[in-house]
């Protein structure tokens, strides 16, 4: 019975994985991964990790994948073609990837199965009742692995904050997609700038005179003919100091 379940679980897992790797439509890939996760949960159950199986289904398949679906919906169906890629040797990269992957797989097989890990041929330790139950996991989490627990929760907090920061819009409803972040035109505090700023001492001194340290929009630097830095000659187009 266990063998049958194992094979069902195993084949399902691998099928889902293959689906993720090969399907074109991103929505379908996400669904394929959900399938993969569910069958993986079956495997977990077979290994007596009940809590973990449940956590997997609820958290992973339930929450994370839903998040994925949302993003896929937002981003849209970008069907990327296989041929027009900027990477040189794009096609042969696929072949190379497959070869590397196969290489890795063979090595792992040899490592895991062929080297005679002690206990691989055994059935493992006897089953302790309560192994894998939530109580069992909770006990461990709050005693032996308390630090990891706390750090993990902290990590979740950071991730949440980070995600919000990454995805928020910046000032104004207007589309900022066209904003070109040209470094030379960013407003900087006086004295922390580029060589252009350092070389054109007249504007620097003038800004210092005005005690505003360049945070206010200053005049474009007057044409300096002394040290004659040719880079210096381009006036900033947006009128900002530097």
């Amino acid at each position, binding site marked *: 019975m266990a*063998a049958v379940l194992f094979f069902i679980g195993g084949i399902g897992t691998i099928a889902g*994985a293959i689906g993720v790797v090969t399907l074109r439509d991103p929505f379908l890939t996400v669904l394929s991964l959900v399938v993969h996760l569910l069958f993986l949960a079956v495997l977990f159950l077979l290994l007596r990790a009940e809590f973990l199986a449940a956590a997997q289904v609820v958290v992973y398949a339930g929450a994370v994948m839903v998040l994925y679906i949302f*993003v896929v919906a937002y*981003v849209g169906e970008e069907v990327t073609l296989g041929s027009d*890629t900027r990477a040189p040797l794009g096609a042969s990269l*696929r072949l190379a990837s497959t070869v590397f992957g196969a290489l890795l797989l063979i090595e792992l097989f040899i490592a895991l199965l062929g080297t005679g890990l002690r206990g691989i041929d*055994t059935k493992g330790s006897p089953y302790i009742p309560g192994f894998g139950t939530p109580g069992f996991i909770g006990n461990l989490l709050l005693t032996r692995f308390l630090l990891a627990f706390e750090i993990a929760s902290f990590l979740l907090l950071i991730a949440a904050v980070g*995600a919000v920061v990454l995805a928020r819009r910046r000032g104004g409803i207007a589309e900022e*997609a066209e904003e070109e972040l040209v470094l030379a035109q960013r407003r900087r505090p006086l004295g922390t700038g580029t060589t252009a700023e350092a070389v054109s001492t007249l504007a620097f001194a003038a800004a210092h005179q005005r005690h505003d340290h360049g945070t206010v929009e200053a005049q474009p630097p007057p044409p300096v003919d002394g040290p004659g830095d040719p880079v210096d000659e381009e006036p900033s187009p947006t009128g900002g100091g530097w």
Partner: protein
Amino acid sequence: MNIGWYLAVSAIIFTLGAVGVMTRRNPLVVLLCLEMMLNGGNLALIAFSRMLGNGDGQIFAIIVITVAACEVCIGLGMVVAIFRRSLPIDVDELTELQG
């Protein structure tokens, strides 16, 4: 079933994830494949935990799931941010990390 089978499945999942990361061009799918690799590792951990009768592997696996969730958050946030800037959603086009 002896543990070797589970480890074999774990290796296959891991490798399939690696191939997917190397092959796919949609960053979302790349992240998915990354998740898959983590899953492969999880399976191995739990298999060993069962073999040794120890709860350590399972705790490790829970932490891995947590970390995977965090990573997904950040990754998807980045994808959203990239999409917002109207940059192409293609790993091959996003080449700022170069020398």
